[in-house]
């Protein structure tokens, strides 16, 4: 794929992250200012009750997966560009491209499986 296309996706992924990670940071770390914003039980945002409540929402399942994919792509493509700036040879460049692609796909598969499986775990726990 041409670098210009990959770069365009990098910027697009950045916009997606800005929206969803901004929401994530607000829920998880600005909960002092917004105590019940997507934390229906109040208190710690990472308490199991709040985590389970969010996991039951299709919105959060979908946005976790989208954010996971966007962040992996944006981060690994950014790191790839930093490494390629250092002028590696063609073989090493190929290794970086293939290695980062496999790493990204593997982590995406794992993280997406977790996001999709958790609602079932919460239901079995009677949450």
């Amino acid at each position: 794929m041409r670098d210009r296309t990959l770069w365009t996706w990098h910027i697009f992924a950045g916009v997606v992250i800005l929206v969803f990670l901004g929401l994530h940071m607000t829920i998880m770390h600005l909960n002092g200012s917004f105590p019940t914003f997507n934390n229906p039980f109040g208190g710690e945002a990472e308490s199991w009750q709040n985590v389970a409540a969010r996991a039951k929402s299709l919105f959060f399942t979908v946005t976790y997966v989208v954010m996971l994919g966007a962040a992996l792509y944006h981060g690994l493509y950014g790191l790839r560009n930093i490494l390629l700036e250092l002028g590696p040879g063609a073989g090493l460049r190929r290794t970086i491209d293939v290695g980062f692609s496999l790493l990204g796909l593997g982590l995406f598969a794992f993280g997406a499986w977790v996001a999709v499986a958790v609602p079932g775990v919460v239901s079995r726990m009677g949450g």
Partner: protein
Amino acid sequence: MESRAHPNRLGIRGWVGGGRWGIERYLYTLHRLTGLGLLTYFLLHIFVTSARVFGPETWERTMRSVEGPVFKGGEYLVFAAFAFHAVNGVRLGMIELGFAIGRPIEPVYPYATSVGRQRPLAIAVLMIAGALAIWGGYNFFFMD
């Protein structure tokens, strides 16, 4: 991006020095450092938060293992890094699309450059990121 015509002679040293650069060059360095920090945290975060798939006991045990002032301070640095990286990323995106740098003009002395034209935006980035970092710090350390 690979550049065959202009090899990267300075390498990583070029991130911190190599010329009479303006504030934007150091925003570039900070953008890279915060990006690398966020990526490192994010890769670990994928595994740590996967504990929720094993149920409440595993989740609570995992959360207890990442408690304490060191982790709290680290989490705050991640928040502050995100605040800067996000706001500066918006500036970079705007410049990429041709906003905030002015129209092309005749090079008449005293020269007006696109870097100079976007300077107020760069200062605004620092102020907004700073305000977000202070707001986040208040939430982290005084409201949590």
